[in-house]
């Protein structure tokens, strides 16, 4: 079993002929130093690097690569050698990463010659460092051990070598970089996704064979031939193994980038860290659990609702955090008297702004990714929705048929968040309605509504009520849903026209105080009787004029024409009605009812508030964002509402004895 080492941990080695495998997200230079028992370098020549790749018992590759194999024979080491430090350095040069923090954490493994891993170590936590001591193999009382070191140097190879006691470290480091640059120029093997995107890819044909073999990690020679079954190795190594003939054949001019990976082996080179996750599976409508398609779509829509709520929560949380952090950093910078003068304060401000911008950008990217996925899902889900879940402009309403049974839910409108302006989530509520609806025709908070005059707002509210009542009628089977209208002042005939003219109502709107109280009394009696019958388990005992169908009472212009008694009856209906199939749809404004004082507060609270214009007053159940609600609008000029109501009326008449 492999031991996964943590920084500082050591492990005794049971064998002396080893391979050290390195894999990194981008090409790195591998080197090693030989030190004495006190950790000092044995001498200026006790360093193996691409410019001087071999010492007894140790060889390193001559070029930078994303994966390396270093062959180590500890028995062949001179006796004075007590410590072998394995170093990794970024090759530098134009286009390449300059710090380990910008690439995936390098991974080193100590393996036997047969490929079995003995120990491995992932060098995490590196940031500005461009050179690092990855591992140490050291001799302790005649046993060799490996230790995970992970000591990075922001000063690069120069600083690292100087720290090991090497005189003239800068010169040697430069020699290493030169050798690497030379190796790169003649290199045939670009990593699968070269970070040197603009760098030279040219290959000098004549230089082929000799250099190719030189580039092979020395460990290859010592490896048993059956290595193909072993762990995968890097593309660069495979390339060299392919042999000059094969390579030349594939390098016909004009072929473009050559893929040197062995067709039968996977590449060990990790993909660049920025690689996007697997592209999401294209969304499918009805991709949720449920017994019926309607239920699956309902669950899918609620799933999208929750996903959007949570993605936005993640985004807002990140932005809040970024804001708070910037605030703190600025406070700190400003409280430092040294920053009051000169450009230091300005610098701190710029730095804080940059950090803020970076985090917000990242958060926005994550949100955009999620939004794109949800938008794609909405694009397939919307057209697949049944009439009860669909917008009025959905073609499904054009082919409307009176259903045989009521749906499980109804779309009351659309929901969205300011961050997701392009995405509308259908607001689906279960049927039968658990609470009455209130179309608020009073002034609302959103800016878009301020321009709408109060009269217009009232008209829109009544239209919204008509559209919702028509929706409820249309999605129920014929005769199973009755709509009653209370219109004390008789002002609703215009916007309610489609309902009144189509013949879907069994009686004209009740008007005047007398009409209101008669209607309320009748529905109250119905609620009482059905409640009693239900409690007594004797629904057959109901009088002939009381049925168990669902009723919707549309109260227009509340509370005009209502006296205290009527208001109390309405409250009773709001509380007790839904359980026995009597629902309320109240059009009114809280301000108009102010004279009733707190008496009506419970009524408003028991109703689901909807607005005739977009308004952000609905909260989701998971995070509690304020969602912007938009009522279902019939497209201008469309006759869909009239057509649907005509069908409902036609289906009703046989029942309307």
């Amino acid at each position: 079993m492999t031991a996964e080492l943590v920084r500082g941990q050591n492990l005794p080695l049971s064998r002396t002929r080893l391979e050290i495998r390195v894999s990194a997200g981008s090409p790195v230079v591998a080197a090693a130093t030989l030190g004495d028992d006190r950790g000092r370098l044995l001498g200026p020549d006790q360093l193996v690097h691409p410019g001087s790749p071999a010492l007894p018992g140790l060889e390193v590759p001559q070029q930078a690569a994303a994966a390396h194999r270093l062959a180590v024979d500890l028995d062949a080491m001179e006796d004075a050698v007590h410590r072998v430090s394995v170093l990794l350095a970024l090759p530098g040069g134009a286009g390449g990463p300059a710090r380990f923090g910008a690439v995936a954490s390098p991974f080193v493994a100590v393996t036997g010659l047969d490929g079995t891993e003995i120990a491995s170590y992932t060098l995490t936590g590196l940031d500005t460092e461009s050179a690092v001591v990855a591992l140490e193999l050291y001799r302790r009382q005649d046993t060799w051990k490996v230790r995970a070191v992970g000591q990075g140097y922001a000063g690069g190879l120069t600083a690292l070598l100087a720290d090991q006691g090497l005189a003239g470290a800068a010169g040697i480091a430069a020699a290493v970089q030169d050798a690497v640059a030379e190796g790169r120029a003649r290199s045939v093997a670009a990593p699968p996704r070269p970070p040197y995107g603009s760098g030279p890819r040219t290959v000098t044909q004549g230089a082929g064979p000799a250099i190719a073999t030189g580039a092979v990690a020395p460990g290859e020679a010592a490896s048993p031939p059956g290595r193909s079954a072993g762990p995968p190795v890097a593309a660069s190594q495979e390339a060299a193994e392919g042999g000059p003939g094969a390579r030349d054949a594939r390098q016909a001019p004009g072929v473009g980038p050559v893929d040197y990976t062995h067709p039968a082996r996977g590449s060990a080179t990790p993909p660049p860290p920025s690689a996007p996750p697997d592209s999401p599976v294209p969304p499918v409508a009805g991709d949720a659990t449920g017994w019926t398609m309607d239920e699956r779509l309902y669950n899918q829509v609620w799933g999208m609702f929750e996903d959007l709520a949570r993605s936005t929560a993640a985004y807002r949380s990140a932005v809040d955090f970024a804001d708070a952090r910037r605030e703190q950093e600025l406070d700190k910078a400003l409280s430092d008297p040294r920053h009051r003068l000169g450009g230091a304060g300005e610098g701190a401000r710029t730095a804080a702004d940059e950090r803020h911008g970076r985090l917000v950008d990242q958060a926005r990217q994550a949100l955009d990714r999620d939004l794109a996925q949800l938008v794609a899902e909405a694009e397939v889900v919307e057209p697949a929705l049944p009439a009860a879940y669909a917008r009025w402009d959905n073609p499904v309403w054009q082919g409307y048929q009176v259903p045989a049974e009521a749906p499980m839910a109804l779309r009351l409108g659309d929901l969205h968040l300011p961050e997701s302006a392009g995405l509308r989530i259908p607001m689906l509520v279960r049927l039968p309605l658990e609470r009455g609806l209130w179309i608020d025709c009073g002034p609302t908070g959103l800016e878009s509504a301020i321009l709408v005059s109060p009269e217009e707002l009232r008209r829109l509210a009544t239209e919204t009520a008509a559209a919702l009542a028509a929706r409820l009628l249309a999605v129920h089977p014929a005769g199973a849903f009755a709509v009653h209208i209370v219109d004390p002042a008789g002002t609703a005939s215009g916007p309610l026209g489609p309902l009144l003219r189509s013949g879907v109502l069994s009686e004209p709107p009740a008007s005047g105080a007398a009409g209101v109280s008669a209607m309320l009394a009748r529905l109250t009696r119905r609620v009482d009787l059905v409640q009693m019958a239900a409690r007594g388990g004797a629904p057959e005992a109901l009088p002939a004029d009381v049925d168990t169908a669902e009723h919707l009472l549309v109260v227009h212009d509340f509370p005009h024409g209502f006296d205290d008694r009527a208001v109390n009856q309405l409250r009773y209906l709001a509380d007790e009605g839904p359980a026995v199939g009597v629902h309320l749809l109240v059009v009114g404004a809280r301000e108009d009812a102010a004279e009733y004082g707190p008496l009506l507060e419970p009524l408003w609270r028991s109703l689901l508030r909807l607005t005739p214009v977009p308004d952000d007053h609905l909260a989701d159940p998971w995070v509690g964002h304020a969602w912007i609600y938009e009522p279902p609008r019939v497209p201008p000029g469309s006759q869909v509402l009239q057509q649907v109501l005509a069908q409902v009326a036609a289906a009703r008449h046989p029942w309307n004895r």
Partner: protein
Amino acid sequence: MSVNLSKGQGISLQKNDGGTLAAVRMGLGWKAAPRRGLFGSRTRDIDLDASAVLFAEKQPVDVVFFRHLVSDDGSVRHTGDNLVGGVGAGGDDESILVDLQRVPVHIDQIVFTVNSFTGQTFQEVQNAFCRLVDETNGQELARYTLDGGGAYTAQIMAKVHRAGQGWQMTALGAPANGRTFQDLMPAILPHL
């Protein structure tokens, strides 16, 4: 292949093939207290609770525990409270699922804790363990045993933190005392 972690040891959550893990599950299991005494109904159940605290640069941002089962962003989910523990056969009694790809960008550490809600110390708890599972294929990545627990009622188990482009897990195994994660906050902070 699973790694038996010892205290302070870390493992990278990079897959061997270079990809990163998409979702991990922190499972917590323990053995229900044996029924003792004459009255079988009068048991002293052990209720351990797993919690996860999400940190952004050492500031707690969100918590997932038995009263808040899903983080607001939806990336961390608790599968529900278990009040008595299991048979101690190795199954998870409480789990916390982490969708690493959906963790908000500012969250850089997620600390997992275990509390004894009923107040027993870990000396009295048997076969308690915490393990990290690759949720995509059910493979156990790391296991950490709570055996040899001392006279304390909580443990800061492990943290999953960002490392480079991926995530890393470090076993912490630090003892603490407290009934819920709130009591542990001072003890968690030094481990961030």
